[in-house]
């Protein structure tokens, strides 16, 4: 079936609310809906856009 575009891969942190270094508590409008849906966007423990190049994570 071709309805899946991206092949399945194991997700790390599945079940946790969306986690991203850019996450921000301030709402987009006065009604404070979170504009997010889904499990962790950030599925790979080493993909930290804030990390310096070549930095080794603990």
């Amino acid at each position, binding site marked *: *079936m*071709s*309805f899946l*575009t*991206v*092949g399945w*891969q194991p997700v790390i942190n599945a079940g946790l609310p*969306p986690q*991203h*270094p*850019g*996450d*921000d508590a*301030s*709402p*987009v*409008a*006065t*009604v*404070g*809906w*979170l*504009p*997010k*849906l*889904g*499990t962790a*966007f*950030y*599925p*790979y423990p080493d*993909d*930290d*856009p*804030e990390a*310096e*190049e070549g930095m080794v994570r603990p």
Partner: protein
Amino acid sequence: MTADRSMPTRNPRTTDSSLAESAPAGGMSRRAVLGGAAAMTGAVAVSAAVATPASATSGGAASSTARLIAALPAASGIKKRSRLVDYEVVELASLLRAGKVTATQVTKAYLDRIDRFNGPFETYGDNGLYNAFVRIDRAGALAAAAAADTRFARARHTHEELPPLLGIPFGIKDSVAVKGLDAKDGSHAFDGNTALRDATVVHRLREAGAVILGHTVASAFSGSITGTFAGNAWNKDYVPGGSSQGSGVAPVARLAAACIGEETGGSIMMPSAANGASGIKPSLGTTSVAGLMPLSPGYDVLGPICRSVRDASLVLSIVLGPDPANDPLTLSAPEPFPAMPLSARKGRRPLAGVTIGIPQTDWMRTSRGIQAGTSPQGTYDADHLAAFNRLKQQLTSLGATVKEFPGLDVTDPANDPYFSSSDVLATVDGSNISPSSAVLSPNRYEIRYWDAVKDFAATRPADQAAALLAQYGRKAPGETSASFESATRLGGMIPASVRVEGEKRRRQLQANYQAALDKAGVDFMLVFSLGAQIGLRTGSGFPVYRAYYQLPNALAWPMVSFPVGYDSTVGLPIAAQFWGPRFSEPEIVQAAIDYQEHFPQYHNAAPPDPVADTPKVAPRVLRSVEPATPPELSNDPLVAEEALR
């Protein structure tokens, strides 16, 4: 969304360098793609913080901007149109670049027509005229136009690359955050819902130079797919289609060059069809919905409504793309997204090799209910049937193979275990959970659907709070009154296993429909969302329409609507839609662009200006005194499914 977000801990140089390293490369791994997407978030956030042009923030953006610019028609070859407001977006973009017109002239031309033909603002009801715009930001639009003209003037010396939509006036649906304006989603119950930032889509439009005119009127709570607030672009006595009512009317009525609509279950397609606009409902995940007032997260998509499909395709290419931190669903789309077509293919038979299927089980609904067993075309009125037959010939003449095929009969629960099954997956807090509720209710819970409204309602006057409670509250069995807490409890108590079962059934429906296409060798489908002349605003809306108009949303598949004729009595538009598998936007949009290139008489037609009644301001109504939308005309999947059982 990302506008105004301060990112004190992020080092722009680091982000840019990591982006640069992830940008080139053939044969990128999924990991690299995701890494690139993550870096992109940082880049966009930084660009918003320091207000650098979008083209400077992304390795891919410069080349994609160049591709968009290169696809614009040459200014010298643009056929003269009778009014400035008649030019398509791609033509305006070219004329602006060539210095033939200024952004201020264009913006003032649209504002002038809004002054003459829109009628009073802030009116959720008949305002005596088009009522496409519910509020405008005149000063902001003129300032943006003046800034665009400054950039055009400077670029004549510096030859810098300018973004494609620089100086193009847009309308944005009332449910989408435009910084500084209240977003009310079709009801004064949301008075005071001031947007603190731009939605991602609006942010990307602004980065591409767009002039935001204001908010276009929406059905109350984006609920109805017919609508009565705006007047149809071709005759304001007729329904405009909803829920993105004003976004369907404004481009065709020449009150905006282009608009953004939102669809959950028909809300881009119906206004596009009813007004003869060219609109694209993207696949789920193609565009970010961050900053949208949600109706059903997991279905909601934002897309363009314009006068031509190539305009809509240009706008979609600007707003699509990953927005991982704000809308993780955008990570389900291919990145980079396949290039959207911006011009017709050469040759007399551009559709050669394309097989377009007409699903014979895509039942229509008439006043006698769902016409299961009768082919869609068997329900069309004479004008629609004539246009349908003519369209088949036209597509065939362009080289396409057009054939009827069974499609998937979604009234059979074996085919559609998601919508059409009467299975109760669980009983939670006294309520039976249908498969689609098992998907949508937890989705709503996850984004604080009810809590956010409850917090807001607590800050508002009593009548407003009551209207919000009437719309969003729930009364559980045994409870004496509706409450937000009850709704939140239901959404939060649906077990993960039940949610997974609902998702599984949704995917089974998707797989079954894909199999039906594959079995028949069909690339994409042709349908008419509306099969007969639409009704008066004082009447019941659509006499004949696709009963399963929500199906593309459940499937997460894209759809493009374009006009193919006008009826012989009132002159209202007749429209067709192509829809195909998820992320087939480039294919269905290309076919529609090819059609409009060879048969331009339909999308180029302009309606007569309305005769101005006495403009009137409707009383400030809240939901409690409005007639309810019948469930079979609801944009809300959980409401609409009541009518499908």
